[in-house]
């Protein structure tokens, strides 16, 4: 509790884009409830605070911490451990913290190739070939920047996590619902869900929420959405040969993308019971291809130019393989905290 008697709230961003913070602000007038009921102790995007202020707090003095972003460097890991120590409830907030998300796609590549892409590719003007140095001496002393990890990790691969809120970003109505539950729990009206639960999401798949008509799926040809000549707005996208990740993806988003003729790309993560998201996608897609001839099957599969990227777009860092071999080759500094596995509903 803070001096004004309110429970403390914190939000932190690690390797993320900032969309999660915007999603929190998008809960509109409910943000006033957050302000009325919580004392914002630490939220670098919204207010000035120093890490040493957090370090000075008593352990477990923050009631609720929403942590978004993956663990990309040692600063991210330090803050994850610090906030775990200072928080009663630590929530992996958004796809990056729960399963790696887009930053986790870097796990397909070696660290060298990542640095080359950023500092030495044709899109970068860097004539002196300046590369970042972890330590640098200046007249005033030694400067340090965070050490980059070869493999991006999810929050639960470095610390114990109480709850997961999936989504890229989480839908605002879901955030508002979670805030409502936490507030009701603080007042003693309801009990919090069991530890390890996925909250702010559904218990089925995106297909279940999708209003498009579904029939028998028999696919002879995959087309990328921009190549499709005519998309029927009433019929299942997958049945029209457009790769849609709905069958493997958890619901909770109201199937927003398929509703506007865009295929689901899987941001809400694995549906209940799915251990490896990409494996579930492979199962689903292979089942609906309408051919028994190996050569024809290969031709149909050629319509999916980047299967691993499409099936693990949000989930690579939390998949069974965690990262492709080139990324592993640079060495792996510390072990994941847990085995990727089934999270509770």
């Amino acid at each position, binding site marked *: 509790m803070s001096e004004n008697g309110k429970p403390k709230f914190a939000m932190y961003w690690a390797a993320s884009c900032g969309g999660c913070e915007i999603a929190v602000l998008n809960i509109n007038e409910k943000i006033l409830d957050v302000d009325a009921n919580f004392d914002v102790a630490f939220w670098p995007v919204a207010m000035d605070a120093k890490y040493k202020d957090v370090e000075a707090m008593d352990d477990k003095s923050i009631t609720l911490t929403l942590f978004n972003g993956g663990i990309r460097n040692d600063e991210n890991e330090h803050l994850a451990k610090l906030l775990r120590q200072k928080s009663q409830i630590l929530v992996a907030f958004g796809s990056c913290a729960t399963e790696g998300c887009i930053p986790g796609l870097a796990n*397909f590549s070696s660290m060298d190739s990542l640095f080359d892409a950023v500092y030495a590719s044709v899109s970068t003007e860097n004539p002196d070939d300046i590369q970042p140095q972890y330590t640098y001496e200046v007249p005033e002393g030694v400067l340090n920047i965070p050490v980059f990890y070869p493999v991006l990790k999810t929050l*639960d691969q470095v610390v*114990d996590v109480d709850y997961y809120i999936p989504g890229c970003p989480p839908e605002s109505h879901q955030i508002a619902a979670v805030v409502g539950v936490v507030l009701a729990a603080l007042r003693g009206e309801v009990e919090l869900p*069991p*530890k*390890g639960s996925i909250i702010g999401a559904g218990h089925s798949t995106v297909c279940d929420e999708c209003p498009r008509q579904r029939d028998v799926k028999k696919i002879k040809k995959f087309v990328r959405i921009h190549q499709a000549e005519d998309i029927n707005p009433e019929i299942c996208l997958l049945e029209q040969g457009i790769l849609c990740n709905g069958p493997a993806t958890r619901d909770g988003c109201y199937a927003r993308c398929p509703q506007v003729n865009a295929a689901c790309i899987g941001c809400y993560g694995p549906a209940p019971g799915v*251990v*490896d998201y*990409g*494996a*579930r996608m*492979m*199962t689903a*897609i*292979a*089942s609906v*291809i309408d*051919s*028994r001839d*190996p050569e024809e*099957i*290969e031709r149909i*599969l050629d319509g999916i130019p*980047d*299967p*691993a*990227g499409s*099936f693990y777009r949000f989930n690579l860092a939390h*998949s*069974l*393989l*965690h*990262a*492709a*071999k*080139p990324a*592993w080759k640079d060495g*792996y500094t*510390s*072990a*994941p*905290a*847990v*085995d*990727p*596995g*089934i*999270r*509770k509903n």
Partner: protein
Amino acid sequence: MAEQFEPIIIGFTCNWCSYRAADLAGTARVKYPPNIRLIRLMCSGRLDPTFVLKALAEGADAVMITGCHPGECHYIEQNYKTLRRYLLLRRVVAQMGIEPERVKLVWASAAEGVKLAKEIEILVEEIRAMGPLNWPGRMAHAQTAAGAMAGHTNGAGISQPIPEEVRA
């Protein structure tokens, strides 16, 4: 002299054909290398790519998927799904930096004990020449399995890594 590398191969067999082929090989005293550990499924169509990825992530050097010949599936057409999954899985596995030859599909009827034994022998030699996969997450999983079992809801019941002594 260095010891010969003994690959660990996980083999998924179908209850109605390849499992019986392996059984027949045993009855007929047809030898095949002990590097393969067979797991029986009711049908090759039961094979979730998760099984293959888990095997590779946790210490297997290769996976052999076996099922009834095309057109002979006990469940009519599930082995065609296996074929399609296998072809898709190979593409994904290659993108993960794993040699696609480490995942192999073999059709073997209940009468083909000799054929199955031969295919196992071929795969073991291929993988022996290729060298260990040693998926780097494996040790990380092993170190933390105890932690995952002790209370954390995520890992419960999912992982039992292959101990180092089994490999030796």
